[in-house]
Structure formats: structure tokens, C-alpha cells
């Protein structure tokens, strides 16, 4: 438990992704089986102990300390596991009792009868130090919240073991904690575990951006085009009665979309775009955002923001792996499959016929409908391979929209950028007033960031913690993919993918754009 507690503490405080990966790899390298496997299960959210309820843990603490002091402490700390970990009275005899290993804890909890669970936890709390108690309580209440996604944990282990993370994903769902075959493989002591046949995630095939000069060298007859829909990429897996919806990175988001899951009455693995659509008409991304923010939607949300999947590809038809086939063949299988199964809440992403790149470019620029980000180009003969190979698939986004905005607020960044004001809220004019229309923290070079930071510090009018209000003096040319109505912002508008396109040091703020200009760009 000591090493696991150190790992949890390290991850809680480590700001950088690479640092977190280093800590996880270091832990795997220095911790024996099966402890490291249980830790991995905890990090990937594959462990749960239904018997250890937060209310019972709170009760346990209240028996040891004054309830009034506990209540004030909890108010101050704000996290139950941490409050209990810190407030638990240490006993002098602790030096003699051996704290449990992670494996002992997991084994005991898995076999304990319901009535025994709290007694076990109490004993462990007595034998652990504050960090150990925190890790224990986070482990058994089922949410570590250490800023590590399942994908990041897998990526860290794959790098450590010198294998592709997608190869690890392929076999992941066939494995169960404590993952001994996986570690044996990563340490080179055994071959890769068998790829899973079950409802596991199959790594997605991704596209690279199409540069204008690339297009000239490509043969238009070798490619097929389809719209690039503005939702989130998902993989629908329904195998042997098990159903899952995975995000692009392999996170299981099934719980958030019961309205799709309910209609996965087939045996297949599909690639598609998750959208909010009403009778097949795609709603702005902002509507989908409402659903993405919720782990389990209310009945009201299911009704107001109905989910929809626009299908791109068929990876498995029953047990048959179609990925080695070319795109065109898979597309034919997809169309036939859809004909035969007719799943509700799903349709096909239509192909866009074209004869030349010029014609396609016109189609792309003409498409301003809601939900279209641009075009996808896929080689007719491309097999479905994981990752982002350059050549078989391209994404060809519509040209960005731009607006000249005025910087209003600047916020400190994180990690390496923590000494820089790097996140900017900008506004456009409405009458004599500046109204915030968006926020961006990318699109500039390090040298420009240093200049922006200096400008912010020299033009601060007020401070609110990490945020500074600046005088209306700097025009930022903001690029964005589209703009939608939104009740979140005072302007009533929300930009999609805003980023700083150019810093207009030269432009007087009075000449920046007006909110009405942005409103005219709204689609859908």
C-alpha cells in the first residue's frame, strides 16, 4: 500500500502528462505482481467495491472524532476521503502493526461478507499513515481522481514496455486484473496476450490534415469523399450480448448514451460520429456538449438532446474482422449491413461524389450547414489500420472563419505556462460595450506568448485571483471553425475551436469587429 500511496500522491501533484507517465512506468518497473496489476485496475477504473459507501466511511470517522469538528473539517477540506485520511487519530501502537499490501486489501474486499467490510477498513485505517489512508479510501470508494485517464495509464505502460499503445488496446479487453500476462509481455517474458474477441475497444483509424500542396499530387479517382461531421468520433461495439460505446481514446462512455446503447441490437463493431440530431437533422455541437457534460443524462436531457450516430465504417460484422478489406469493400458491407439491420438512431454518412479536386473544394466551401466541419478523403483501397498513417485518409477542413476581437481578460496557464498569462478571453463590440465572445489559449508561438504576457502585465486594470482584467487595447484576430447560439455566454454565441490567428498589435481596438458580424456567421 505504501508504494501505491506514493504513486497516488505523486500523480495528484504532478502537473505534466509526461511526468505522470514517468511515475506510472516507474511504479510498474519497481512493483511486483499482483500489486501493480491492481494499481493499474484502479487507475483504469476497472475496480469497484460496492460495499464501501462514502456514508459508512463518514460514520466510521465520526465514531473516532468529535462530529462537530469533523463537520467543520470536512467543510474546510471539501473531500471526504482526504478529510477522513487527515483526521483519523493515529495510534502509538501503529508502529507494530504491519500495514496491508494493495493485494491484501483487494483480496480481502473481494471475499469479505458485507457485514465484515467496515471492520476491515477500520483496521487498515489504523495501520496506515495519512497518505496510505487517502489512497485506501480513494481506492475503495472507486474514484481516484488523480488526473490520469485509462488511456494515459495504458500509454505509459506501452511506452515502458516498448510496445504500441494500440497493440495494448487490442488485447486489453480480453484481460482482467491483475493483468499478469500483460506485464509478462511488457517485460519481454512472454508473447502478447491474445487479442480480445469481446466487447473491447479497437483503436481507431485517424486522418491527417490535407495540405493544399498534397491535393495536387493525389489522384482523385483513388479517393472517396464524405462529410466530416462535427460531433465526436465513437466506436460502437456489440459483441456476444455485451454493448459498449467508446470515445476516440477508448474511454467507455456507454453510460452517458443509453438512447444509443438501447438500439445496439446487433453483433458488430462500427465507427461513426456521435451527434445530437432531431429526425436526422444535425443540431449544433453545443447541443451535444450538453450531453457530453453528463455521465448519466436525465430523462429531460434524453428528450431535449436526442443522440444520433452517423456511421462511417464497419469493422466487424459478427465475428468477421473486416479491417483488412479496402474502404470501398467495407463501405459496401456497411450499406448492406445497414439495409439488413436498420438500427434506430443511426444512419449512414453519405458519400460525396466528385470528379476533380476543384469541384470538391467548391462543395466543401459551399457547405455551411450545421454539423459539417469539412470533408474526409479516404483511399478506396485503404484497409482499416489503427493510428494516424499519412496517406490513406485525409481530413480537409473548411477554411476557418475569423473575427477581430479585443482582449478582455487573461488567465495564468498551467504546468510550464504557470508563470505566463496564456489563456485569453476576448470580446467584440456591442454598442459602446465589449461583450465576451470566446476564450483561446493556442495559436501563438512561445516568443509571442512572452510578448502577450508582458502586454497583459502592463495593461492590467483589475485582478481576480489568477485572472487579470486588461484595458481594451489589444486586437486579437481569432480563427474558429463555426459559431453557434449559446446561452452560456453573455453574447449568446459560442465559437467552435477558437484560436489566436494573428496578434494585431497595429490595429486600434475601436476598429475591432462587432457582435452583429459574428451573429451573421451563425449557422443552423
Amino acid at each position, binding site marked *: 500500500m505504501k508504494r501505491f500511496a506514493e504513486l497516488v500522491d505523486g500523480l495528484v*501533484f504532478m502537473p505534466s502528462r509526461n511526468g505522470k507517465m514517468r511515475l506510472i512506468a516507474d511504479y510498474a518497473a519497481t512493483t511486483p505482481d499482483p500489486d501493480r496489476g491492481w494499481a493499474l485496475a484502479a487507475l483504469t477504473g476497472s475496480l469497484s467495491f460496492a460495499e464501501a459507501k462514502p456514508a459508512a466511511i463518514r460514520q466510521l470517522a465520526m465514531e473516532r472524532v468529535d462530529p462537530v469538528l469533523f463537520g467543520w473539517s470536512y467543510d474546510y477540506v471539501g473531500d471526504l476521503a482526504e478529510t477522513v485520511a*487527515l*483526521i483519523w487519530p493515529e495510534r502509538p501502537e501503529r508502529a507494530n502493526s504491519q500495514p496491508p499490501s494493495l493485494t491484501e486489501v483487494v483480496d480481502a474486499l473481494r471475499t469479505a461478507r458485507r457485514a465484515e467490510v467496515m471492520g476491515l477498513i477500520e483496521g487498515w485505517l489504523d495501520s496506515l499513515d*495519512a497518505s496510505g489512508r487517502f489512497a485506501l479510501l480513494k481506492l475503495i470508494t472507486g474514484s481516484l481522481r488523480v488526473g490520469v485517464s485509462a488511456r494515459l495509464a495504458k500509454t505509459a505502460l506501452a511506452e515502458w514496455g516498448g510496445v504500441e499503445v494500440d497493440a495494448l488496446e487490442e488485447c486489453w479487453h480480453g484481460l482482467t486484473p491483475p493483468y499478469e500476462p500483460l506485464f509478462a509481455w511488457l517485460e519481454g517474458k512472454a508473447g502478447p496476450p491474445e487479442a480480445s474477441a469481446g466487447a473491447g475497444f479497437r483503436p481507431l483509424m485517424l486522418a491527417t490534415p490535407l495540405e493544399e500542396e498534397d491535393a495536387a499530387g493525389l489522384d482523385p479517382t483513388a479517393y472517396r469523399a464524405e462529410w466530416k461531421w462535427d460531433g465526436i468520433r465513437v466506436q460502437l461495439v456489440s459483441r456476444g450480448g455485451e454493448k459498449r460505446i467508446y470515445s476516440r481514446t477508448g474511454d467507455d462512455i456507454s453510460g452517458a448514451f443509453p438512447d444509443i446503447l438501447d438500439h445496439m441490437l446487433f453483433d458488430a463493431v462500427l465507427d461513426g460520429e456521435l451527434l445530437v440530431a432531431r429526425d436526422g437533422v444535425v443540431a449544433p455541437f453545443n447541443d451535444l456538449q450538453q450531453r457530453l457534460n453528463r455521465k448519466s443524462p436525465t430523462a429531460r436531457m434524453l428528450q431535449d438532446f436526442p443522440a444520433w450516430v452517423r456511421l462511417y465504417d464497419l469493422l466487424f460484422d459478427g465475428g468477421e474482422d473486416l479491417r483488412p478489406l479496402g474502404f470501398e469493400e467495407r463501405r459496401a458491407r456497411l450499406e448492406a449491413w445497414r439495409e439488413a439491420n436498420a438500427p434506430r438512431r443511426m444512419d449512414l454518412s453519405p458519400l460525396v461524389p466528385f470528379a476533380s479536386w476543384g469541384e470538391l473544394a467548391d462543395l466543401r466551401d459551399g457547405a455551411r450547414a450545421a454539423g459539417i466541419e469539412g470533408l474526409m478523403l479516404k483511399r478506396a483501397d485503404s484497409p482499416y489500420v489503427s493510428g494516424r498513417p499519412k496517406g490513406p485518409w485525409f481530413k480537409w477542413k473548411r477554411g476557418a472563419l475569423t473575427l477581430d476581437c479585443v482582449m478582455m481578460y487573461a488567465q495564468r496557464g498551467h504546468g510550464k505556462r*504557470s*508563470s505566463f498569462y496564456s489563456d485569453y478571453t476576448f470580446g467584440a463590440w456591442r454598442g459602446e460595450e465589449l461583450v465576451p465572445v470566446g476564450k483561446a489559449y493556442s495559436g501563438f508561438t512561445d516568443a509571442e506568448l512572452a510578448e502577450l504576457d508582458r502586454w497583459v502585465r502592463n495593461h492590467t486594470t483589475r485582478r481576480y485571483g489568477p485572472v487579470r482584467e486588461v484595458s481594451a487595447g489589444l486586437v486579437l484576430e481569432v480563427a474558429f471553425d463555426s459559431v453557434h447560439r449559446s446561452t452560456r455566454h453573455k453574447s449568446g454565441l459560442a465559437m467552435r475551436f477558437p484560436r489566436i490567428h494573428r496578434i494585431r498589435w497595429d490595429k486600434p481596438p475601436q476598429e475591432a469587429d462587432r457582435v452583429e458580424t459574428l451573429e451573421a456567421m451563425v449557422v443552423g
Partner: protein
Amino acid sequence: MIPPRLPPDPPNSGRLHPDRWIRILPEGVYVEPGGFYVDPVRPVERAVITHGHSDHARPGHDKVLATPGTLAIMRERLGEGAGAGRQPLAYGETIRIGDVTVRLVPAGHVLGSAQVVIEHGGSRIVLSGDYKRTHDRTCAPFEPVPCDVFVTEATFGLPVFRHPPDLGEIAKLLHSLRVFPERSHVVGVYALGKCQRLITLLRAAGYDRPVYLHGALMPICDLYRAQGVELGELRPATVAAKEDLKGAVVLAPPSAIADRWARRLADPVTAMASGWMRVRQRARQRGVELPLVISDHADWDELVQTLDDVGAPEVWVTHGREEALVHHATGRGIRARALALVGFEEEGA
């Protein structure tokens, strides 16, 4: 929670309860028969100062009484503002001011820090200022003084605050230096007290390499050395080559560790030495990667222990999380109330 109202003095006790001769005024705690304030927050004619932190030792008083250490710190930090008349009083010596006697007793907080022991009308009150009970090589240890009324801080007055052994925290820093030998380790420390204590802890743990300092930290370190505290080799970080700062310990005020100043450092590990680091969310809010729970204030157990040690039947709580300590004391049969003093920050925590 509403502080319990004090019952009137028992009749004919023969002693004059401090409630009758100490007043809480906007300027601070006023000792009426002595005509002076203790740690006043506004300029006054006569002030007794417990220690040199800026929320206790404010500028502009006419006459100041304090330990020689505290007076030296005030002169360094406040210059002319340190007071027109400065009267030193060594630990343990007693003087008479007006109708009261005053004695200064070590508080164990920072160099020169003192509790103010005041006697009048057969009663004794101890105003402890800020204090801690943990051993600290840079200052004299806290001495409990039995009294009728004990006035205490409660900066860490919740049972979640338990400071672990300080050398264990230093071991965390030394471990990180071994794991990340190419990275500067910048530790946020308060200029007075924490900075020097951290250096002595490093030295006690066997760390004998130079320690680099932000410019704001050097004057107080020089003052500590002049008072006989060994700090080993110190170098200014501001003029050091980036190469030299790789794998080095660099101390800086908390406000500088994540700001422009820290950009001169090589991929720094950001650490912070403070009792607040006990609470993870606090550490994360400050962007701290390596929290070191090292405090110059009493933790919960020390506060509770101190109430037992001084054995006072009555406790007044000045600042911090007063309600919890008042609740605890009341439960132990001690009369307790919060003074709700304003103007005390969390410097040196």
C-alpha cells in the same frame, strides 16, 4: 457558532479578572493599566510586539518593547518605521509598565518570538502571539507558563492539521533531488523564519551544498547569522548561471515560485514549505508539485497539548479557525471565546 458569553467574575475572588482590564479595540489588544497594546494593527503610542512577522510587527508606533531579536528584525524590515523608541527586553526579565508587570517568554515561532506574560491585580494572562512546539534550531523553544487566561492563535485549529516530522518532509525534498538531478528545486518559503529553518533542516539532514536564495531572502538570513544561527553556504540565485541551478535547492518567497522570477530556473520542481500543504487541494491550487508540510505554527495536536500544559481555566482565541478550538476547549471544561481580531494574515504558516 456563537462564542459562549463569559459569566461575571465570582464575587470576592480577590483577583481582578483580565476581562476587566484588557480591552479589544480597533487598534488591537489594549492593556489598560499598562497603557500599551500587544501587536496592534494600527500605529499607537506604546506597543509590545511578540515577533517580527509583518502582521504582528507593524510600522509607525512611538514606543516599542520587544526582544532584542524581534527589534533587530523590525529594524531590518521596517527601517525608520520600526518605532521611535525601541526598548529591548530579554527573555525571562520582568519590567513594570504602569500598573502591570511584563515578562517575555520564548514562543518557538521564529527568532526572537515571545509570549507576553502580564500580571495585574493578582491575575496572570499570557498572550502567546504565534507559536509552535516542534523543535526549531533557529529559535528558543516554547515555554508553557501557567496562567489564568491563555490567549492563543488557531491558524491550524482543525484536527485535519497535523504536521508530520519535519525531517521526514526534508527527506521528500532530498529524494526528489535524487530522482530529478537535472531540475532546479525551487521551494516557496516565507522570508522570516521558514527560510532559515528550512536551511537548518537541510543542514541537519546532511545536505552541505550551497543553497541559492532569491534576493528578498538574503537580509534576514544575514541577520540570523549575526544572531548566531549557522546556515552554511548561501548564494544569490539571481546572479547564478542557469547551469549552476540545475539540481540545486533554490529558496524564494511563495509569490515568486510560479512567476516570472522562476523562469530563470532549469525546468524547476515547484515545492512549497507550509502547513497548508497538508491539504492537497490547497497545494494544487498553488500549482505545487512537491508539497512540504513544514510549519512554524502549532498544529491541532500542539494547540490542544498547549491548553493542557498551561492549565488556564480560560482561553481566548485570536485568529485562525477559532470556532473549532473554542469548541474543543469548551468540551474540556475550559471557558473559551473567540476575540475575532482582524488584520492577522497567514504569513509564516
